[in-house]
């Protein structure tokens, strides 16, 4: 056995191929890890900045309110600057609280959908679309090309390396004429082939773990956590698949060129043809909801609210006899504007929520269809698993969006109630402002 390993190692080290490919792999992994780390750093910086702006805004208003309460200062004459008024602290001019999705420990390994969905959103009164509106500024072209991240290097490039090192294990012996020699010896040729494959598997897998650890240490990506273990396990299973495939193709006893073509064809099939065909099928069998139709349907609701305006307002004043309805637009105070606004918004919101749900369900149908095909390709499975570990998968972002909606309702309800009751904010109230609770992973 020792003999065998010595021989194989010598063989590999002598071929310039191995050295070149290892160096290339090192460069790719370093570049990919660097890209991932940079993206996560930008995300952390953004989170820090928004937290700071929010903190500053509320600290300043708290101080102002404190001195008003103590009689040191007068309330500002303009209602929209007065911290005793719930609206300026809940609705506009920098008011609002951030819902934040912090990066996972291993977020750097896979970009996933992080260049599509925002990782933070500002929630203020009536900002019902906060989770979706906040556009990140990624160049759409580079999003379409895709990022050079570890998921790409390990999912797409690494199998090619595996193929390069194992496509001709027996065929090369045959082509060099050494196969006869081997056959004359008292050994089982399939066992020898298996040994060669296992040796290469351990070597390449070991090499890649080594390179990953180096790059993680270099860029300060956390290694000592359960996520890293599952990452390595997933990678181990994925590379095992490719070695197993190579083993079986070698058993077919074809020429080296044929082996290479079969293996490359499989790679093309699993990494490109299956995903792209599933994408196309999903698109045509379960088309994503037409968003232009969604927009016109929403508009229809806006118009309905306009025609129903009189009814909505009559209803509102009947239910809230404490408010007196102004006769003309000119007579309206800011309070009348806001009260009537809340009444109309609540009406519209109910209808729009229903519409939104209907469209979201249609989108989910395509996602489910596409997901059911992931088992047909190890590359899709691998990518999905890595996205999960990195918490950059669609599901994470969708549940983040949902949690933002919940938070927005809480936030709006809190300030709206205070405003409707005509209550003044106090310094003590600052502690009871709704807080965003992070989604549980």
């Amino acid at each position, binding site marked *: 056995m020792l003999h065998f390993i010595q021989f194989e190692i010598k063989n590999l080290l002598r071929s310039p191929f191995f050295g070149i490919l290892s160096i290339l792999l090192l460069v790719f992994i370093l*570049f990919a890890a660097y890209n991932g780390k940079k993206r996560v750093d930008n995300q952390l*910086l953004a989170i820090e*900045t928004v937290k700071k702006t929010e903190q500053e805004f509320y600290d300043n208003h708290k101080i102002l309110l404190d001195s008003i309460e103590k009689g040191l200062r007068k309330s500002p004459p303009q209602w929209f600057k007065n911290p005793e008024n719930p609206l300026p602290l809940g609705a506009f001019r920098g008011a609002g609280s951030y819902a934040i999705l912090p990066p996972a420990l291993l977020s750097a390994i896979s970009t996933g*959908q992080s260049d*599509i969905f*925002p990782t933070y959103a500002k929630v203020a009164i009536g900002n019902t679309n906060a989770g979706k*509106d*906040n*556009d*990140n*500024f990624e*160049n*759409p*072209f*580079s*999003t379409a*090309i895709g*990022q*050079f991240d570890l998921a*790409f290097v390990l999912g*797409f*490039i690494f199998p090619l390396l595996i193929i390069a090192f194992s496509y001709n294990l027996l065929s090369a012996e045959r082509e060099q004429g050494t196969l006869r020699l081997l056959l004359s010896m008292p050994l089982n040729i399939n066992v020898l082939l298996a040994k060669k494959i296992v040796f290469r598997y351990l070597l390449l897998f070991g090499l890649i773990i080594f390179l990953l650890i180096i790059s993680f240490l270099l860029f300060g990506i956390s290694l000592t956590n359960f996520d890293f273990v599952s990452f390595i396990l997933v990678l181990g299973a994925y590379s095992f698949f490719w070695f197993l495939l190579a083993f079986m193709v070698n058993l077919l006893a074809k020429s*080296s*060129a*044929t082996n*290479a*073509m079969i293996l490359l*064809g499989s790679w093309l099939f699993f990494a490109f043809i299956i*995903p*792209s*065909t599933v*994408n*196309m099928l*999903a*698109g*045509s069998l379960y*088309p*994503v*909801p*037409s*968003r*232009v*139709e969604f*927009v*016109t349907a929403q508009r229809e609701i*806006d*118009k309905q609210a*306009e025609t129903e*305006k009189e009814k909505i307002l009559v209803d509102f004043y009947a239910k809230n006899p404490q408010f007196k309805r102004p006769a003309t637009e000119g007579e309206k105070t800011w309070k009348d504007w806001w009260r009537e606004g809340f009444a109309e918004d609540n009406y519209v919101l109910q209808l729009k929520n229903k519409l939104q749900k209907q469209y979201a369900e249609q*989108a989910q149908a*395509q996602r489910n269809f*596409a*997901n059911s095909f*992931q088992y047909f390709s190890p590359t*899709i499975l691998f990518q*999905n698993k890595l*996205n999960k570990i990195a918490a950059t*998968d*669609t*599901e994470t972002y969708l549940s983040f969006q949902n949690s933002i909606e919940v938070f927005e309702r809480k936030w709006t309800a809190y300030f709206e109630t205070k405003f409707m009751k005509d209550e003044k904010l106090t310094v003590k109230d600052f502690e009871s402002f709704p807080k965003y609770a992070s989604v549980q992973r």
Partner: protein
Amino acid sequence: MILHIAKKEFREALRDNKFRISAGLLTILVVFAMLVSWNYYQKVNQEYQQANQTIRSQWETQTPKNPHSAAHFGTFAFKPVQTLSLIDNGLDKYLGVSVFLEAHKQNTAAYKQIADQNDLARFAELTPAFVFVYLLPLLIILLAFNTITAEKENDTLRLLLSQGISFRQLAMGKMAGIWLILLTLLLPIFSVGLVLILVSENKSSAIGNYILLIFSLLLYYTVFVNIAVAVSAWAKNSNIALVCLLGFWITSALLLPKISSNLSKTMYPTPSAIAYQKQLKEDLEKGVDGHNPFSEKSKQFEDSVLKANKVDSVHKLPFNYDGLSMQAGEEHETVVYARALKNLNNIYFSQLGFYQSTALFSPTILLKMLSMQFAKTDLQTHYEFTQQAENYRIALVRDLNYDLKDNSNYGDWDYVSKDKDFFKKNVKFDYQPISFSQTLANTSLALTLLVLWVLASVFLLQQTTKKVVW
């Protein structure tokens, strides 16, 4: 002689199982992709046309209201679907489809398709362009990698050369054979595409672009055929030829696009959304705010208007001051938004420029960009659309503010136009597609680079076919 060799190659390829299977699969894939894409295009285009009509009638039939309130109510501009998106849907799913047009604010296009999909949608999508740009070069490699090395390995090369043919003539013959096979395969496929375009809308402008696309694809295939034959002429055996050519494909189609796209972002960093919005807010505050008459800039503007009209109060002006100040605010806001977006887009285009320059190392980068440009599913076309939507917004809001200024009294927010058809008479959004000559101008650099690639591959072929390397 060359013709003889070509014929032989052609016949051999037809007999070869590997080629028959891969060519057959490829044809099925691309025709299937074309039909599905066409079907999808028809559906989306119909939705677009319908939505366009609906949104206009929703504007026209809105309840009578103060024109500035109508400007806040706003309307939408929808991004038209391009006919050639059935060949290459380019960036379509990564770009928003509708722009909300309202007073005071330029909104970005919203509702990206990708947000309605999942992780799998980030893999390649089976479009005709995907097959043309990424898979066909692989077929060429499969056809050509051993075209000369096999003759070396079977020792038939000596035999051939002893018949009096030069090595270069042999290579020419091989090339002719490969082209014969390729064209037999491609012409029917291209024709299917042409037929689908002919039964679609806006075909007249699409056909010109489609022909340009086919033309550049053929140049692209020329590069691959030349390089493949050159490598086969140079390589000692088929194995080496195959590894080199596959290495070239992997680098050109898989590695370089991602690497240079990432590098372009390092070279020209995209600003963070926070920094962008902060700058925007600061710039907005530097001008007139139509809704805040107390701001310093608003006061200054008011004084200047009073002075120019030689009155001492806005009530005495011969027009409604609110309309004028709203419009003044609008004009300031428009400039601020335009500048901010222009800066952002300039960064995007710098990134694209860097990306295109790395096409010197990868012809696939070039073709990917070209096919998107010809299909009008690229960033430039999107930018053009948002620009037109913005110009329309400016015109519409101006109409509304001037009606307020000219036909109502100061402070009269109950004012509605006496003209029942007022909203029907407002300007309409009329999208002007990018013209053929514009497309030519936009793509001229990439086309030049492509021609350079062809020349370089011809040179390589010339060098490697001078004499035989055994």
